[in-house]
């Protein structure tokens, strides 16, 4: 099946081809002691002290390879980050593939290598997985589902209901890069500078949790972007979130792609950013601490929490724009 090969229905049938795929493609890439047994379940070690955190996510990005990442890298980062923003230390992940018959094995190798690279960077182990192959046309090349298990240490309390008026809103870098990169690839608008922000955030966030700064809650603004994350947080916190347009970091190249396609970068996915809500007295220290870390160099204080509801942006000319939830798909405008 190797070089220049194609995925056949038989690769998902559970027979000889499946075990060849597992032995040749997955085990060497994800190499860890839990995987080597190739048994029905990965039997793991006793969990460290704390509350277990469990999450799952499906990934269907088109195109599957983009500047700054690929489907595999993205799928591991996404689950690591979902655990990390909940305050958990990510430990073990599962990795399941749904492949379209005829997929180039080269693309599969890229996806698996991307997942392995993300696992190494995050310091987690991929301990179980599954592969199914569906007939040509029944899926678009490759879909990935990852699940992750982590542990939230005692005394680490992150919860939107702890957010108070006056708290500051901090973002760990420019927003919209991932969404703009993928949209740009789809519409032939690649630029030298434009690349996904996709990265594991557990190291950056672990440094925040251990700093003792009073962070109330954290989220990763993936699907729906910063604006959607803030809307969901405002609703759970029963508060209003005010963003300052001048302070929200947006790269020029991301902004340019958005202008051309008529989409708003505040609604585009980030895959390597966190939004943190922090006690106002600790806001400057938090930004300084984040900026010392390689994954948080462009962190910024972008707004505050107020009494009320919803999300508004104070525009750079002094107006106010409500940032509502999107209705339906995020579509380019024509006018």
């Amino acid at each position, binding site marked *: 099946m190797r070089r220049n090969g194609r995925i056949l229905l038989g690769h998902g049938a559970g027979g000889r081809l499946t075990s060849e795929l597992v032995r040749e493609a997955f085990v060497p890439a994800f190499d860890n002691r839990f995987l080597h047994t190739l048994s029905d379940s990965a039997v793991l070690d006793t969990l460290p002290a704390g509350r277990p955190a469990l999450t799952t996510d499906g990934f269907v990005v088109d195109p599957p390879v983009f500047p700054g990442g690929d489907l595999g890298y993205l799928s591991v980062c996404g689950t690591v980050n979902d655990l990390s923003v909940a305050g958990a230390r990510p430990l073990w992940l599962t990795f399941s593939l749904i492949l379209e018959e005829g997929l180039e094995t080269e693309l599969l190798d890229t996806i698996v290598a991307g997942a392995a690279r993300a696992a190494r960077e995050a310091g987690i182990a991929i301990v179980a997985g599954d592969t199914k192959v569906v007939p040509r046309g029944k899926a678009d090349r490759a879909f990935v589902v990852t699940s992750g298990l982590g542990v939230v240490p005692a005394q680490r309390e992150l919860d939107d209901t702890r957010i108070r008026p006056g708290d500051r809103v901090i973002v760990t870098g420019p927003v919209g890069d991932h969404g703009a990169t993928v949209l740009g690839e789809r519409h032939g608008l690649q630029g030298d500078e434009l690349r996904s922000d996709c990265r594991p955030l557990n190291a950056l966030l672990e440094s925040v949790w251990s700093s003792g700064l009073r962070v109330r809650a954290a989220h990763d603004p993936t699907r729906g972007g910063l604006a959607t994350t803030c809307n969901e947080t405002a609703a759970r916190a029963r508060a209003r979130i005010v963003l300052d347009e001048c302070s929200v970091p947006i790269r020029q190249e991301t902004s340019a792609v958005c202008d051309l396609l008529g989409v708003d970068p505040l609604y585009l996915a980030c895959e390597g950013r966190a939004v943190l809500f922090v006690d106002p007295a600790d806001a400057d220290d938090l930004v300084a601490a984040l900026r010392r870390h390689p994954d948080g160099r462009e962190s910024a204080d972008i707004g505050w929490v107020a009494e009320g509801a919803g999300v508004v942006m104070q525009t750079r000319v002094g107006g106010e724009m409500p940032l509502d939830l999107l209705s339906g798909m995020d579509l380019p*405008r024509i006018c």
Partner: protein
Amino acid sequence: MSGEPFFDRAVVDALAARLARVSDDVGRQVTVMEVCGTHTHAIAAAGLRGLLPPGVRLISGPGCPVCVTPVDYLDRAIALGRRSEVILCTFGDLVRVPASRSSLEHERAHETDVRIVCSPRDALAIARENEDRTVVFLAVGFETTIPGIAAAIAEAEADGVSNFLVLPGGKLIEPPLRALMEDDEVGVDGFLLPGHVSVILGADFYRFVSDEFEVPAAIAGFTPADVMRALVAIVGQIRDGCARVQNLYARAVRPEGNLTAKALMARYFEPRDDRWRGLGTIPASGVALSPAVAWRDASWIPVDPGVPIEPHGCRCGEILKGVIEPRDCPLFAHACSPEHPVGACMVSSEGTCAAWYRHARMAVGGRA
């Protein structure tokens, strides 16, 4: 984002202060209408309404091609899309617009092959790649978009791409402006004229607004400073009791417009009476394909679009004319919301009703 000075807060603040002074001089509330979807969007995105003095009311007219596309046009598009050989190509924001019994978004979830494109040339490329299929481009838009469609038709003609058809739905800006000014019910004191359309048509084109109707007007660009400057100019004309068309977007709009684009448009399209959602039929306000390329009109394909059903109780027409405000419509925020739009003004995210809906939710701190 280009043109940073146009976003300068100090510049906008100074213009807002000037507008307040001029508005005080007028001594009554004046209503200015913009007739361009990009203006609607730019005004909302900068939160400009909050910076206006109480004496200036800024309303959105029939400037968004998506909002004014009538329901029977979409019914026909949907019926065409149900034919297995047809690929429908459309600009993105048309897909959510409710037709009589369905929408392109719903059709897409069933069998219809609906492709979202950013340009008519993308649709032409799809036609080249699918020689055994019929590509129907949903050709909606104003004078900004029509020349691009004409260019795609010219290319299809030159290269003999015979499976590229269009469903003409283009609209012209002059007839609805005239209709609005002739309507005694409409109380518009001045027009903020569109930027992009004016790049094509030219500043001289609008002379009828001031010469025939004596209504103050200004052509504006899309930055906050552009819009504020145009409002100062329009309200200034009202104060001075004069009416002329001021071109405040001269960095892009020439007096004569874009002659090449106009020639292209005239070669492949000709005016026809056309229906507008909410406004009814306006003479010579739409475009049909010219005789030489009329065979590319997908309206000739026999389909049964059914009887058009206009949403009952929807008052978009009056809202588009500025006669009533969204809260005066019985459907607003009840049967009609951005998630389930009934009328045209709720469909586009920056339509008048959609913009009001969002502000109302903010104001009461919960659902409108």
